[in-house]
């Protein structure tokens, strides 16, 4: 390998004498350049390319995981918001019920009071009317007694011609009425 093959004779014959891969005189150069090339590639892959590719892949995985986590968080946030909304709705509904109940109770109490007042008034009016009726009845009763006395006196006078004093007539009516 000391000189390039140029002619069919001389150096060429010398060169082609062996199977090229088994020509040991080329081995030192081969091994030297293999070490150089391999070491260069090793350093590049170990120090630069490998970490860089790993970084890119890791970054993508991280991004995907982060996005999924964010999506999960959004989902749980939405669920929490829904739960909060439902709680608020339930609270509001309960409050509305309570207020409606309270309002109804106030109204019922007022109605009750009004009814009681009306009842009392009605009773008073009834009592007054009763008293009036009793007074009228008593008065009527006196009138009836008087009429009976007068009638009795008149009847006696007509029947037997005896005039009767009002006191006697009254006594007689009283005796009969008793």
């Amino acid at each position, binding site marked *: 390998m000391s000189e390039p093959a140029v002619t069919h004779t001389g150096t060429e014959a010398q060169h082609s004498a062996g199977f*090229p*891969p088994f020509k040991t005189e080329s081995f030192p150069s081969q091994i030297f*350049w293999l070490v150089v*090339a391999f070491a260069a590639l*090793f350093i*590049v892959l170990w120090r630069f390319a490998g970490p860089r590719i*790993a970084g890119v*892949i890791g970054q993508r995985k991280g991004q995907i995981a982060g996005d999924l986590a964010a999506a999960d968080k959004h989902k749980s946030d939405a669920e929490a918001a829904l739960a909060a909304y439902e709680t608020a709705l339930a609270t509001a509904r309960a409050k509305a019920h309570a207020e409606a109940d309270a309002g109804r109770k106030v109204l019922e109490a007022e109605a009750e009071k009004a009814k009681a007042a009306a009842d009392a008034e009605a009773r008073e009016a009834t009592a007054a009317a009763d008293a009036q009726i009793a007074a009228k009845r008593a008065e009527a009763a006196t009138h009836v007694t008087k009429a009976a006395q007068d009638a009795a006196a008149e009847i006696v006078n007509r029947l037997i011609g005896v005039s009767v004093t009002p006191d006697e007539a009254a006594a007689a009516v009283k005796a009969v009425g008793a």
Partner: protein
Amino acid sequence: MAMNPMEQFEIKPVIFHDPLFSIAGHPIYFTNQALFMLIAVAVATLFLTATVSKGRLVPTRGQSMAELSYEFVANMIQSTMGSDGLKFFPLIFTIFVFVLFQNFLGLIPWTFTATSQIAITFTLASFVILIMVVTGFMKQGLGFLKLFVPSAPWYLLILLVPIEVISFLTRPISLSVRLFANMLAGHTLLAVFASFVVLLGAAGGILSVAAVAPFLLIVAIFALEMLVAALQAYVFAILTCIYLNEAIHHANH
């Protein structure tokens, strides 16, 4: 024009005719092999750094391929060695990428296939076995030697231990020859059929028409060689994983 299919494996100095320097009396030339080996490393570097430099969330085609090759090797290590094998990731990734790019670059005409040289593949394989042995003794101490002692009755061990030792010693040979022979055979085949095309074409007449046949064969073999290039890189890498796995985990035969 010499139609020697072995010519493509000839290692020649390029650019500089004289040795650059010498190591322990051995002259070191800058050869066609060195040139294409460095080009392959440069292409691999470009492929694995430039494509991911932007680090897009939605990868471009190139970035996707770089990521795929990374995850392919990572998964290979996970499945053969488990998670604690991942500390060998830079080494195995380098071996895979190195062999893959040497194989693929060599398929381009007028390039040089570094992995078609036994010196290259044997050095790589010996390096892998050396790492395996060093790691094995560091991790398991003398227990690493149990690798040679399968669980069997003692009278069988007399037979089995030498077999295990021999099979261990042949590992660097099988690992290196497999890659070397595949590359060498494929490229030789392509060169032989290419020379048929030239010979038949030059013969003239009906023979020139017949030159289409070896040409079509070259297309088919080239497709096969692309598969072999990727497959051999994978095989080399996965065998490295399997050997290193024996070094970090107790062998249970």
